[in-house]
């Protein structure tokens, strides 16, 4: 029988499936961070249970960590007492259970969804979980990766398994070729604007089509990262030569004969011809423009040249109320264009867009320009590894010379629990993944967009269509 990529991975990881119960699903890799794990470790301690597979587990610090520059001692200062406790708790818990942990500022530390792939831990065909909804990022490698709650973090620590009901499948097919100035971020914002933020609930996405196939691994990660913003816990892309080339040679990648064996297995994973999905969406990449959100959830997005919609267009009262509330929060009027709207802060970073290719693109765009007066621009690399690479290429100098802040690695202003945040009423163009009320700081207002749109807006000090600057500079926006 023909199977999808998802079904192949699912079937290979079912430990048991008793009647009238969820399946017991085996977890190959468990990623842990400081915010959603302490209560899980407490649960284990109360029951006298040790982590079952500490070496299939890895921990990092990213959410509550400052990204401010290092002090004279070479350390990143943490001044928030609760964050200090939370970080120390993670180290103590990991030491107690023998779980490797990347402490703040150390060589391999970074955002959990950036470091898994860059270390070669994320591989096709695996099941990967983390107490973080953006775990869907790892699906770019053809892994079944999804976010879990803290109770489930305890389940995985204790048993290396989870109780799961089998989700449905949803093919998102994107054919054609992206136009200049349009990126992977615009594809996924368009998908979410199309299906709405609950459109994929109960489903696992598989992104297919020629436009997806032509993307780099880092661009694929940007797409899979935001699957959850369309309601799907996981989003997968079939592994191919692009995937294998990315993994080969990374620290945890298979080597020698193991590599050949692994690749042979990975080649069997793509969905079979004739495999069917429960739902399907088809998009044409050729017609996509840079996207931007105007509201308070990632589904409230549009082409950057469009105008803010009118709540009156909805016949459904609760939809109308939701848009009314969003526009009131954003202080926007129906029918208003976003192009030319003032911007206070530009944030380039987060598990969506903080990898080296994102930073190269941002640097290429800003080179020779200045951040507009009155605009604060933060560039936050996703990991210490990305930071070192960017500095080796001189990208940090480009940003600093343009007037942007070059920071340490972490979630930063995407989650605003680490000191990096908007002030009430400020507008930000952000390359992150959520524009919920207060997400980037209480009272702060977020326009989600691609790194190109973010940088173009930083240069002009207002929301800007990056195509106007791309055309002017005539550089090639090539996927890395």
């Amino acid at each position: 029988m023909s199977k999808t990529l998802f079904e192949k991975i699912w079937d290979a990881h079912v430990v048991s499936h008793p009647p009238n119960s969820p399946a017991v699903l085996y977890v190959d890799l468990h990623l842990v961070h400081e915010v959603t794990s302490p209560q899980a470790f407490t649960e284990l301690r109360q029951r006298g249970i040790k982590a079952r597979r500490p070496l299939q587990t890895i921990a990092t610090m990213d959410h509550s960590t400052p990204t401010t520059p290092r002090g004279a001692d070479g350390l990143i200062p943490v001044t928030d007492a609760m964050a200090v406790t939370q970080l120390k708790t993670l180290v103590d818990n990991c030491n107690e259970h023998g779980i490797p942990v990347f402490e703040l500022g150390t060589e391999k530390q970074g955002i959990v969804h950036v470091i898994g792939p860059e270390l070669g831990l994320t591989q096709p065909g695996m099941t990967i979980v983390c107490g973080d909804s953006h775990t869907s990022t790892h699906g770019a490698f053809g892994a079944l990766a999804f976010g879990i709650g803290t109770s489930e973090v305890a389940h995985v620590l204790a048993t290396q398994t989870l109780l799961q009901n089998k989700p449905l499948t949803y093919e998102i097919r994107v054919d054609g070729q992206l136009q200049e100035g349009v990126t992977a971020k615009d594809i996924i914002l368009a998908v979410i604007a199309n299906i709405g933020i609950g459109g994929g609930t109960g489903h696992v996405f598989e992104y297919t089509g020629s436009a997806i196939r032509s993307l780099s691994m880092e661009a694929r990660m940007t797409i899979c990262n935001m699957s959850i913003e369309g309601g799907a816990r996981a989003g997968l892309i079939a592994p191919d030569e692009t995937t294998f080339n990315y993994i080969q040679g990374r620290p945890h990648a298979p080597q020698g004969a193991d590599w050949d064996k692994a690749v042979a297995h990975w080649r069997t994973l793509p969905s079979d011809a004739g495999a069917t999905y429960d739902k399907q969406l088809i998009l044409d990449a050729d017609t996509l423009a840079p996207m931007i959100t105007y509201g308070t959830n990632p589904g409230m997005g549009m082409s950057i040249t469009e105008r803010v919609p009118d709540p009156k267009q909805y016949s459904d009262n609760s939809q109308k109320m939701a848009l009314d509330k969003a526009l009131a929060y954003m202080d926007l009027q129906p029918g208003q264009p976003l192009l030319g709207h003032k911007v206070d802060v530009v944030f380039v970073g987060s598990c969506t867009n903080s990898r080296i290719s994102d930073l190269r693109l941002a640097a290429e765009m800003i080179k020779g320009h200045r951040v507009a007066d009155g605009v604060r621009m933060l560039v936050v690399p996703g990991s210490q590894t990305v930071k070192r690479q960017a500095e080796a290429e001189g990208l940090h100098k480009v940003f600093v010379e343009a007037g942007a802040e070059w920071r340490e690695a972490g979630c930063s202003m995407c989650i605003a629990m680490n000191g990096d945040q908007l002030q009430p009423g400020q507008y930000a163009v952000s390359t992150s993944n959520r524009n919920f009320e207060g997400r980037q700081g209480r009272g702060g207002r977020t326009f989600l967009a691609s790194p190109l749109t973010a940088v173009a807006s930083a240069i002009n000090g207002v929301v800007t269509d990056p195509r106007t600057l791309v055309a002017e500079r005539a550089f090639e926006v090539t996927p890395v």
Partner: protein
Amino acid sequence: MEPLKPFSASLVPLPIENIDTDQIIPARYLKVTDKNSLAEGCFTDWRQDPNFILNNPRYQAGHILVAGHNFGCGSSREHAPWALKAYGFQAVISTYFADIFRNNSLKNGLLPIVVDAETYQALLDLAEEAPEAEVHIDLASQTVTLPNGQKASFPIDPFSKTCLLEGIDELGYLVKQMPEIEAFEASHPARVQTAG
């Protein structure tokens, strides 16, 4: 976990779609290392508005939240059901829940009750007209009963239902699967080792 018994409580209407977990508990409250100190953070930013429903004296006794479609979307933070429970809610009724929030709620005895649009509207009307009116929730029969006797059934997967009714904790259940897990591992060598 304590077995979930039938209960009656009054309603708090919050008819807004897509309420995300950042509203239920903002990220700045996630620096805790326990589960019990989150009541203060529950809907805290919305509570700054004096007109917000949780500030309305008529609804202070409500223990069942009636909320719009796709409640609990966004972040996977289990702090969301912890915060709702700490604030005093026993159940949330909506027409649709986001997956991770629903799973997290079930593991904490916060009942996520899905009803049809008609029942949802009837509950909102009831809450508006008679804030003190209580509805009765019986998980065993999977029914919500309004004061006028009108009943609505709600779905729940049989496993979660049994766990909630009998107070079975899922971790304990999984630990009992250890022979099967060991057998699986014997035939499936670890894919990666994180050390080194």
